[in-house]
C-alpha cells in the first residue's frame, strides 16, 4: 500500500466504504492491537483504545498536518489513549498494571528475563512506558517516535534515556533481591 494508494483508501473509508476501512484495519489493526494490549494488559481496554484510535484518526484527519503516514497519526492517537488508560488504571489500584503478569520466583528465587523486564517496567511512568514500547516493540527510530508523538526529538531522547536509566536501576535491585533470596 503506497502512500498515494493509502490516501485514496483513506478517502474512500471516510466516505463510508467499508472495504477501504477493512484494508486499513488489516494493515494496522493487529499490530496496534498487540502493542496496546502489551501495554495496558487488559483486552477490553485495548479494544476500546484501538476502536477510538481508528475512528478518531479517520474523523479528525484534517487536524493531522504532518507529512507522515496515516499510521503515524493512528499511533499518536492510540498512544495518547493508552497513556490516559494507564494513568486511570494506576489511579484505581496501587498494584500496577504489570502485577497480574508478575511471575513468582522459581525454585531458586530467580526470575526469568521476561519476568524481570515485566517487573522493572512497573516503575516507569505511562509516558516513559509508551516511548519504550514505540522504540522496542514497534521498532520506531527516535525520529519516528518524535513524529508519532508530535514532540521534539530531544523530548523523545529525554524520556527514553530516563526510562533506560530507571529500568537499569530497577533491574539491578531485582537481581540483588534475587541473589539474596537464593543464598
Amino acid at each position: 500500500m503506497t502512500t498515494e494508494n493509502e490516501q485514496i483508501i483513506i478517502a474512500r473509508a471516510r466516505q463510508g466504504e467499508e472495504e477501504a476501512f477493512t484494508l486499513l484495519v488489516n494493515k494496522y489493526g493487529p499490530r496496534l492491537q498487540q502493542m496496546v494490549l502489551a501495554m495496558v494488559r487488559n483486552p477490553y481496554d485495548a479494544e476500546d483504545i484501538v476502536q477510538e484510535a481508528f475512528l478518531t484518526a479517520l474523523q479528525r484527519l484534517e487536524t493531522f498536518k504532518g507529512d507522515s503516514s496515516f499510521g503515524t497519526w493512528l499511533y499518536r492517537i492510540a498512544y495518547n489513549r493508552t497513556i490516559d488508560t494507564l494513568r486511570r488504571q494506576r489511579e484505581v489500584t496501587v498494584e500496577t498494571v504489570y502485577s497480574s503478569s508478575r511471575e513468582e520466583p522459581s525454585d531458586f528465587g530467580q526470575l526469568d528475563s521476561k519476568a524481570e523486564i515485566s517487573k522493572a517496567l512497573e516503575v516507569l511512568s505511562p509516558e516513559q512506558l509508551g516511548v519504550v514500547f514505540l522504540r522496542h516493540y514497534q521498532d520506531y527510530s527516535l525520529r519516528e517516535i518524535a513524529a508519532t508523538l508530535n514532540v521534539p526529538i530531544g523530548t523523545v531522547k529525554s524520556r527514553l534515556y530516563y526510562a533506560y536509566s530507571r529500568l537499569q536501576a530497577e533491574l539491578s535491585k531485582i537481581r540483588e533481591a534475587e541473589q539474596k533470596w537464593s543464598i
Partner: protein
Amino acid sequence: MEHLNFTQLNEYLDDEINKDKLELVRAHLFSCTQCQQELSRIKDLRTQLTKEVQTLGGDVKPALGWEKRLHQRYRETYRVKPQWNRSWGRPVIAALVALLLLALYLPLQNRVPLRRPSGPSVLEPIENLPSPHKELRLFGLDQQKVPESLETRPERAVVYTSTNEDELEQVYQELQKAGLQPVRRGNEILVERINLQEAERLIAEITKK
C-alpha cells in the same frame, strides 16, 4: 576527556552524536574501560528490552471479535454504503431495472393482441387452458409439424386466424356451410371438437377458394 554520561552513551548507540564530537567520543570509548562497561550494560538492556517487550502481550489475548466490533462501530459512525453498491452493485442494479421494465412491459403485452405469424402455418398448443380441453391453433395452412400428442386428442381447435376482417368472415361462413359450428373470438375462428385432419382439410379447401 571526562567520562561519557548516560545520555551521551545512549546517543552514541543511537547515532545521535554530532559529527564534530564523534571522533572524540570514539577515542574515549576506545581507551576507557569504565565507559566501555557502561556502554555494554546499556546495550544489554536494550537487547533484553527488544527481546522481551515483543512477547509481553503474548499472555493476554485480544478480546474475541474485536475486529467485528470495530467494523460495527465504523458502520454506526459512517453510514456505510451497502456492499452491493460497490464492486458488483452496478450489474445488480441494472438487472433489477431490467426486471422491473420487463414486469411493466409484460402486462401491456397481454392487453394487446399478439402478432400472429403470417404465411405458412404454425401449429402450437396452449398448455395453460383452465378447461380440460386441449386447444389447437392453426395459424395458416401448411402445418409443417404437428406434435403427436396433439394429433391424438384434438378436442378443440382454433382453425383460423387473421387480422383481415373480410377474410375471417369468409372463412366463418365456409365453416358454417360445411356443417360445423364455428365461433368467432377476436380475430380467431374456433371450432370445437374438430378432428385435426378434418380442420386441416377444411382450411385447405377454404384457402383454395
